[in-house]
């Protein structure tokens, strides 16, 4: 039986994700998304990844979701009024239960994932040097040594995205004038 905090945050995350998928109002969906991301961040904390948890809250629940809410309120994006889409809801429930049953079978009943407790290393891996630390310092060290090229590419990607967004959001009617 997992501990209480994990169960609480897992229930919070899944409930908020249900709110995101099922709500007809886009703003309610965005609120569910924020809650789900905070739940994921809490799970990062439970997994001792403190730096990633803080990053998740800052980048996702902060910057990205503010951008989403801004766009939702800028555009009038509500679903068209009318009868509740029962067909879509039934299809969604069927898909979710199929996938969920597959997930439970794969990770729980099939026995493919050994239920080793945290910290216990499988024997075939125990002779490798293991470095797992919780500090942000070790992130920096890995990022600037082993993952230097990916870091440069990520920086370049952000620049490309910036330029792309500026050129996309320029009003195209200006060019015709």
């Amino acid at each position, binding site marked *: 039986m997992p501990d209480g905090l994990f169960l609480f945050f897992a229930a919070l995350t899944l409930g908020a994700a249900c709110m995101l998928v099922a709500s007809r109002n886009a703003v309610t969906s965005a609120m569910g998304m924020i809650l789900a991301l905070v739940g994921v961040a809490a799970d990062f904390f439970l997994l001792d990844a403190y730096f*990633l948890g803080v990053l998740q809250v800052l980048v996702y629940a902060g910057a990205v979701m503010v951008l989403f809410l801004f766009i939702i309120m800028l555009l009038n994006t509500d679903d068209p009024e009318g009868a509740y889409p029962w067909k879509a809801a039934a299809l969604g429930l069927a898909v979710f239960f199929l996938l969920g049953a597959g997930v439970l079978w794969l990770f729980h009943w099939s026995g493919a994932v050994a239920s080793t407790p945290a910290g216990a290393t499988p024997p075939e891996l125990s002779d490798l040097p293991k470095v797992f630390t919780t500090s942000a310092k070790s992130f920096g060290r890995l990022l600037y040594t082993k993952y230097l090229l990916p870091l440069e590419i990520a920086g370049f990607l952000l620049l490309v995205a910036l330029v792309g*967004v500026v050129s996309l959001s320029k009003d195209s009617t200006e060019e015709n004038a």
Partner: protein
Amino acid sequence: MEHTSLAHHLILAGLLFALGLTGVLVRRNLLVVYMCLELMLAAATLALVAFSRFNKTMDGAVLVFFVITVAAAEVAVGLALIVALFRKRGSVQSDALTTLRD
């Protein structure tokens, strides 16, 4: 942390991914579809962090760092595309976008 095993975190990540995929398949509002895509990314990062923690290496966690970076860039470009689409068509419902089909 003593009482959760790798399987618990993987089940949570898998169910979250299933919810996101359901939303992508079922919803018609492009913004909500986009949020469901982000939810699937978050589920994948959750699985990566769990593997990293239980395998006692940092590499999965560093990969999550890059996933968050790419997701931020992707959200910016995707939302700009959706806004441009809304300007042209006046709607973000995916049933309204049938030019290629007709």
